[in-house]
C-alpha cells in the first residue's frame, strides 16, 4: 500500500513538474535556459539581407553581453564602432568616432528584436506569440501590430539552450541574421559592465 502511494505520489509530482502538453522540446529547451540564466555572453556576426541590397558584403561583428533582468550590451566593431546599452526601457547608443551618445527608448534602439533574453518563455509570451517550428526552432510573432518587427526566428543550440541563430524579419523588406559563436553562461558578468558610462566629452543627444 505504501509502495502504491509512493508511485501515485511520484506520478503526481511528475505531472505537476511536466510542462503543458502543448510545450515542445524547443520551447522547453529555451525555457530551461532562461530560468537558470543570470548572465550570458557571446560574440556574433550580423548579416542584413533584403531584395534591394542583397546580403551584406561584409558581415558586422560584435559581442553581446546580458545580465538578468534586462541589462543588455551590444558592442559592434568595424568601420563605425557602435555600442548599444539597454537598461530596462532606456537605451544608449554610443558612437565614439562621432563623439556622441544617443539616449533613446529601448524600442527605438532596436534592442527589442532580441526578445529571447527574458526570464522565461512565459514572459516572452506577454509580448509575442511563441510557435514551435522544429525540435530546436521557434518563431516569435509580436502581439502588437505597430512595431517594426514581423517575426523573430530562433534556432537553439543544444548545449546552452540559447539561440545559435536569430533571424529578425523586419516590416520593411529587410531581415537581420545574428549568428552566435558560443555562449558563455553564468560566468559572472559584473553589473558595472552595464553602467551608462561613456567616453569623457561625448555629446549626449536625446531622441
Amino acid at each position, binding site marked *: 500500500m505504501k509502495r502504491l502511494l509512493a508511485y501515485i505520489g511520484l506520478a503526481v509530482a511528475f505531472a505537476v513538474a511536466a510542462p503543458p502538453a502543448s510545450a515542445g522540446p524547443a520551447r522547453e529547451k529555451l525555457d530551461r535556459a532562461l530560468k537558470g540564466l543570470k548572465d550570458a555572453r557571446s560574440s556574433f556576426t*550580423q548579416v*542584413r539581407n533584403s*531584395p*534591394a*541590397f*542583397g546580403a*551584406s*558584403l*561584409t558581415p*558586422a561583428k560584435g559581442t553581446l553581453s546580458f545580465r538578468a533582468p534586462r541589462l543588455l550590451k*551590444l558592442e*559592434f566593431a*568595424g*568601420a*563605425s564602432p*557602435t555600442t*548599444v546599452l539597454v537598461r530596462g526601457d532606456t537605451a544608449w*547608443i554610443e*558612437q565614439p*568616432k*562621432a563623439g*556622441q551618445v*544617443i539616449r533613446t527608448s529601448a524600442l*527605438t*534602439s*532596436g*534592442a527589442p*528584436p*532580441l526578445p529571447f533574453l527574458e526570464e522565461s518563455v512565459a514572459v516572452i509570451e506577454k509580448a509575442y506569440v511563441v510557435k514551435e517550428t522544429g525540435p530546436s526552432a521557434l518563431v516569435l510573432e509580436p502581439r502588437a501590430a*505597430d512595431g*517594426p518587427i514581423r517575426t523573430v526566428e530562433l534556432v537553439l543550440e543544444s548545449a546552452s539552450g540559447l539561440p545559435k541563430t536569430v533571424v*529578425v524579419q*523586419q*516590416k*520593411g*523588406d*529587410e531581415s*537581420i541574421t545574428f549568428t552566435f559563436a558560443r555562449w558563455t553562461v553564468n560566468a559572472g558578468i559584473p553589473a558595472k559592465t552595464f553602467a551608462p558610462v561613456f567616453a569623457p566629452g561625448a555629446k549626449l*543627444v536625446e*531622441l
Partner: protein
Amino acid sequence: MIVRALFLCLCLTGLGFVRPAFGGTDLVSRVETAVEARRAALRHVSAEVVVRLDAPAWSGTGTCEGRLVAERPGSLRLRGYAAVSTVFDAVTDGTRFWVHVPGPNLLWVGPAGREAELVGLPVDPGTIVGALFGEPYGATGTPRAILGKPDWVAWDQADGAEVRTRWSGSPLRIQEAELWSDGARVAKLAYHDWRKRRGTWWPTTIAFDGGSTGTFALEFTDVRFDRAPATGAFAPPEAADAHVFDLGLADLPAGDAR
C-alpha cells in the same frame, strides 16, 4: 656638361620626377577618355559605407553605417543603420525621391533634384549618383580647359551653371568638383584616397559640401561592381501608416506620381 645634363634629365624622367606635359587641351582629351572609359565600364555599384551627415536641418551631426546601391543615370538607394535599427531609407529613381525615417515613421516624397531644398539635406541623391560615377553635378558633353588652372577642366551646363573639376594621377582620376552659378561657387565635393577595389579605381571617401545646408560624406568600407540592382531596388520604401510629407508630387506630369 650637356651630356651630363641630358643623362640626369633622362634618369629623372625614368624615375618619374619630371612631370609629363599636363593641362590644356591634353588634359581635356585625357579627361574625356577617362570619363568615357568609366561610363562604359561602370553601370552600377553596390557598397557598404559609413555615412557622415552634418546638417542644421537634421539635428546636427550624425554618423552611421549604411548600404547603397546605385545605377546610371540617376537611381540610388541609401539606407542608414544604427547598430540593429534602420535610421533612414532614401531612394530616388531619377524622377521622384522618398526619404523614410522608420523611428518616428515619417516619409517625405517629392520630385527628384529638390531634396536639399525640400528636406534640408546637404546633397541631393541625384548628385550622389553623379559623383559615384565620376560625373559630378551632371557634368556632360565636351569639357574645356580653365585658363591658369592646369589641373582643372570645366563643363558648361544648359542651365547656365558651370561644373569645374580637378584631375590628377595615373590613371587620371577626378579629385574634386565644384558647381558654380552666377559667378559664385554653390557646392563642392572631394574624392579622397583612390584605391583599386575589386579591379576598379574607387575613392575611399566622397565628401560633399552643401554650404549652408551642411556636409555629407560617404566612406566606402566595401564596394562591388558585379551586382546588378535587383528589381524594385529603387522602389518606394515600405512605410505602412507613415506620416507622409508630400513635397510636390503635384509638380510631376500627370500619371507620374505613385
